[in-house]
């Protein structure tokens, strides 16, 4: 069993959260509120020490890049969110960040998520170096076409579209089945992780 007081604190907090499984109770609520507080305190620490100090305070206090003060004023407009009369000013900093990000995102996403994916779907002769990889490439291409057809809303599902979107939903369901199976795995892993801590680090039963 661990002799470290911190390990005991961690173990007690772990059990407080697990107590929710029995029913909602004050221990769970305490732990939940504690988390909200500490997580935000942690964030404040790093925003200050690792962003504002090196990028703003240090250069400005050495008299370099004085124009950063103007930028800091724009940033400070985030505070107006909590002053009802001028709260619309908060839109300015949001607009700067959102505008740049949206613009930077569009051409890169078109390249990475549309064109590169499109390119990978095209079946080429070199994929038939062995029959398996060729066959799988064909199946992938057909599956992609069928799935896109399923999500095509501008035409009634008649004629050829009907069987194709039917194939589409089969692919979609197999895909979701894969996600389902893997999600079960993920959730179980998280529980195992906590038990490794309780049984191993705290009680010392796993070696």
């Amino acid at each position, binding site marked *: 069993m661990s002799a470290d007081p911190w390990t005991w604190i961690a173990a007690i907090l772990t059990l407080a959260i697990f107590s929710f*499984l*029995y029913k909602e109770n004050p221990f769970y609520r305490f732990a939940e509120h504690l988390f909200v507080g500490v*997580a935000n305190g*942690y*964030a404040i620490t*790093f*925003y200050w*020490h*690792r*962003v504002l100090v*090196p*990028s703003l305070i*240090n250069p400005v206090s050495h008299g370099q890049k004085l124009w950063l003060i103007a930028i800091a004023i724009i940033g400070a407009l985030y505070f107006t969110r909590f002053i009802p009369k001028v709260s619309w000013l908060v839109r300015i900093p949001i607009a700067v*960040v959102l505008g*740049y*990000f949206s613009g*930077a*995102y569009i051409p*890169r*996403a078109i*390249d*990475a*998520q549309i064109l*590169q*994916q499109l*390119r*990978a779907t095209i079946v080429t002769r070199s994929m038939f170096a062995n029959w398996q990889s060729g066959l799988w490439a064909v199946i*992938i291409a057909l599956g992609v076409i069928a799935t896109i057809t399923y999500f095509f809303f501008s035409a009634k599902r008649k004629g050829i579209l009907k069987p194709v979107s039917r194939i589409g939903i089969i692919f979609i369901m197999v*895909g979701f089945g*894969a*996600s389902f199976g*893997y*999600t*079960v*795995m*993920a959730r*179980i*892993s*998280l*529980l*195992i*992780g*906590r*038990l*490794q801590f309780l*049984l191993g680090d705290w009680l010392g*039963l*796993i070696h």
Partner: protein
Amino acid sequence: MGFWNKLLKIDRRWIYTIIWLVVMIPLLFPFKIKPMAMPPVTRLFNYIDTMPEDKALVISVDYTPDIQPELHPMCIALLHHAFATKRKVGLLTLQVMGLGLGEAAIRQVTEEFNAHATTHEDSIINGEDYVYWGWTTPIITILLGMGERITNVYPVDYYGHRTESLPIMKHLKNYDDIGIVVSIAGSSIPISWVNFANTQFGVPIGCGATAVSAADYYPYLNSGQFTGMMAGMKGAAEYEQLVADKFDELGIKWELRRKGTEAMSSQTAAHIAIMIFIIIGNIAYFVTRRRKK
């Protein structure tokens, strides 16, 4: 009320108890099984293992405490691999809540290596063999800025040292000096790495994903935008196995704690329990439905 109907109506706390036991017992009495690495993991391992010696491995600790049991073992395994093969490592995180995990991982692994080191050469030294850049904001500053000059993106590292003063940074200018960035994340951050870093600068991206999102990332593996991928605790266990084999090959004797591998017995038992639950539930569902008709 028939037997099946009654079975369906049992209190959910009974189910909770069963899961609790099914996970706990195999942890205490594990059966030994050797994980077999699947192609996405092998590809990642081989790429890192064979990339040119002067190229650094960058691990982006993009996960947060809530999902760390799945992903933390991946980070540890990558660090084991890198330090055992004397590769330079850069660590960073795109999430402020991931900072402490990066620190915990690097502290654990350097302590392990340094405990077995006899010479200065063998030791793993901060600022020479690895650097922990820590965190800054926003994401786009990091993803694009690292293609130009890393020291501009991170004026100071996690510990507050000026990055320009660190010896390792002399050979780590930008993505050109980085062999691969492995983004370990529970969110869609690896896709951001692809969108910005891979698309614009061509730096290879590897991925460590929670099993929840792993299936959604296969199109990126297929297109080569991800060099390789570890999926969940299972992926971590597979990488741990490859690293253990590498240790044997290099003649490193000391034992590693392998949290991913250790979990596999419980994982097996729990999967079977869940499948039995679904089967019982479905039998009951069809029996009761037929009776109603």
